[in-house]
């Protein structure tokens, strides 16, 4: 008998990090499908090209750092980061924008800090913010949705947009969030009547994309990939802020709670970004605080700031605060009195 000497436990559950990452990728499907339906196949090209660059950068960095390349790539985390970044970027982005974004995400936000698990900031959001600050023009043009655009670009158009940007001229349109932010004199009812892209709740296309990501998120929740605390706290805080400052839809209103929940990257952020465990607070109580503060920040930046959306900035700011939150939200361990007293 040649006997292995391994310390307990000897049994192991079925879950693996690779499986977690694959589940996240699968969960993006409904949202991505909605994006393709309403905005054309640009997002698919985004995902493919960004993933290619992300894997290349990750492999190169691992090689330089003397880490096992194939075994580490097998955790799928680079593809997850790339996919989340690609979904956040405007469809029909040029290849160099995707490359710079992938480099910022993988090299700057992840490998420079020591790779998966060691990054204090959400890599996809770092990539997004780097691009937003560096290339505001490309980052604030969003395709017009199905029904409002004269015709949606096909797959060939999407490839052309990516690799020969000069030859592509798609229809673009202000997003619902842009419309609302720029509005100062019209009541919400008048604005909705004047702007066809606002649709019924969160904007034509946008609301279905949001519901798609919500469905994917609920599926992940059901699979036990994350706990409900952070996303629910974020959505609740955002809705509460919107309700507080709704002001009956008067000209100064920041928009209805439903609008904020179903517009922009709210659902995507709540279930795919805020739930990133590496850069969030760790305890359940900490994740409640973390999520709620992100929700508050999203509302503030959306209504008072100057950017197309606020999820990335809100998440990055709270990434900073995560260790601070952890310090004050350590759970009461077995056998310890409440309130931290011995």
């Amino acid at each position, binding site marked *: 008998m040649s006997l292995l000497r391994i310390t*307990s436990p000897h049994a192991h559950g079925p879950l693996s990090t690779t499986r977690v990452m694959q589940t996240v990728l699968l969960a993006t499907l409904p949202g991505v499908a909605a994006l393709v339906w309403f905005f054309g196949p640009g997002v698919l090209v985004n995902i493919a090209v960004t993933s290619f660059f992300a894997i290349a950068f990750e492999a190169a960095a691992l090689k330089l750092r003397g880490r096992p390349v194939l075994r580490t790539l097998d955790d799928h985390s680079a593809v997850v980061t790339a996919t989340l970044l690609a979904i956040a970027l405007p469809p029909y982005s040029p290849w160099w924008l995707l490359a710079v974004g992938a480099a910022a995400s993988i090299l700057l936000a992840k490998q420079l800090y020591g790779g998966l698990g060691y990054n204090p900031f959400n890599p996809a959001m770092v990539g997004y913010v780097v691009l937003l600050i560096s290339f505001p023009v490309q980052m604030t043009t969003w395709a017009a949705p199905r029904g409002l655009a004269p015709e949606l670009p096909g797959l060939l158009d999407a490839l052309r947009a990516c690799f020969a940007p000069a030859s592509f001229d798609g229809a673009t349109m202000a997003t619902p969030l842009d419309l609302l932010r720029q509005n100062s004199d019209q009541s919400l009812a008048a604005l909705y009547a004047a702007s066809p892209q606002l649709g019924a709740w969160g904007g034509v296309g946008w609301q279905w994309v949001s519901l798609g990501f919500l469905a994917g998120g609920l599926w992940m929740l059901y699979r036990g990939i994350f706990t409900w605390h952070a996303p629910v706290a974020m959505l609740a805080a955002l809705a509460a802020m919107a309700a507080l400052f709704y002001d009956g839809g008067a000209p100064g209103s920041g928009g209805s709670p439903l609008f904020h929940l179903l517009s922009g990257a709210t659902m995507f952020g709540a279930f795919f970004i805020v739930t990133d465990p590496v850069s969030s607070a760790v305890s359940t109580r900490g994740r409640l605080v973390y999520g709620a503060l992100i929700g508050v920040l999203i509302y503030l930046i959306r209504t008072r700031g100057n950017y197309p959306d606020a999820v990335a900035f809100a998440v990055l700011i709270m990434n900073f605060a995560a260790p601070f939150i952890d310090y004050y939200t350590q759970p009461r361990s077995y056998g310890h009195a409440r309130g931290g007293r011995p």
Partner: protein
Amino acid sequence: MRRVHGFHGGVHPPENKAQSLAAPIRPAGIPPQLILPLAQHIGAPAQPVVRVGQAVRGGELLAEADGFVSVPVHAPTSGTVSAIEDRPVPHPSGLPAPCIVIDTDGADAWAPPAPLPEAERADPTKLRERIQGAGIAGMGGAGFPTAVKLSPGPGKAIETLIINGTECEPYITADDTLMRERASELVAGTRILADLLTPREILIGIEDNKPEAIAAVRAAAGSDMEVVVFPTKYPSGGEKQLIEILLGKQVPSGGIPADIGVVCQNVGTAVAVHEAVALGRPLVSRVTTVTGEAVAHPGNYEVLLGTPMGWLLERAGVDPARARRLVMGGPMMGFSIPEPACPVVKTTNCLLVPTEAELPTPPPAQACIRCGLCAEACPATLLPQQLYWFAQGKEYDKLEGHNLFDCIECGACSYVCPSHIPLVQYYRASKAEIIARRREAEKADHARERFEARQARMERLAAEREAKRAERKKAAEAKAKAKAEAAASEGAGADGTQAAAAADPIQAAIERAKARKAALAAGASDEPADQVAKLAANVETIARRLAAAREKLDAYDGGEASVAEALKRGVEKTEEKLARAEAELREAREGASEEA
């Protein structure tokens, strides 16, 4: 119906209990050799009371308890003590430890059993002595001497006695079969424990995946105890978790259950107590589950303590080619046994021999993504992911701040970890490191105190010496001054002599001493006994002085040779003086005796 409470976390690993439940408990038989470690329990190892070559009968004492937290070892069958030496033993360290080896003779001859007489059972001291004397230590796996737990100490009234029939580890069914087949012995043993502890209530806690055991114990139990059934979840059988499930109370961190009026005993322990008291049979065998896919006949065996695991596995039909590891205990908390020569001991509730497919070799650990699944699984409500980071960074203060020492090492965190990180291993290592550092710090404190005390003593001695020197100097100065004054007054006039004599105290003192000496000499011939006493006192004084001088010389470790030399000379001189004084004393004594 009692309300059962929940506890935080926990996991549901596949139970795999059916394999070993097909047959009733079978006797494993008598192996040719038994290897009995002296430490099968927590506490001081037992001390051998037999010699190599001595014949022993079953039930005879082989090694006696060494102190309060210790239990003896008995011979499981008849045979000859063939060696008392270090042998491989089942311990996580893998180090060999002292064992008594018995070559069995197969006759299984027993010393006549001596049940505790009915009259003595009412005496708690006698009962405790019997339980300790029978070598009983917690049989659930920890092996803590049972009698110690039954002596909660003054001021700690026990409200609740809990009998632990949870057996939450996968694969193990030793307690399950024991409850099915020996429920009446279990109840009898429980009553003995209750007689000692006089609790207000007796609870027998069993997980709901053991319906037959529950039915058997319910049928045997009287109205004085309650069988409480609760949902299956690992690690419900942990003492602290079970107390929370049954009572909704938590044992304070760093405390023991008796602090909140609870004592927990395993069902196997209760049966052993019954056998020790009512049958006079010491703990020499136990029920052990042998299971795993590499075993052809998995089941529960009544095994003599000291039986080599390899011998038992052969009986159970193990396939060495498929056996990938040998685990003592369950797959969650059991530890790997390095070689099958290790014996079955009092805490061997299970031998698990899985195949590679059954419990695969863990893949290399991936990065921790702080997913928090471990925190959800932790029954102690710790943050395992944070502890892991602190352990990696050797941040021992933070580890203690995050209550590392409340970790019960149940393995639930490692079980759920998607990155296959051996978390428990990190915690064990960190705990050991922190304990080692505490010891180190204590040692350093002790050394510092000793050094400071010595420093203070040296300074004090130096100050005393200095003070004496200053005094002598002052006296010399005074003398010189007096002399000068005397000379001056002599020159002044003849009538000044009287005054000068009066003014010279030293001269006067010398005069007085002379007079005393003369008186002494005169009186000496009159009363020799008096003189002997005085001389003896003189010898004593000089001896004391000599001792002081020697001490001074020993204590001096300064670099200056001249000082050391002076001290040495002082000692020598005193020695001479002592010799002289002693000679005088001898003479005086001889003279005195002649006179008499």
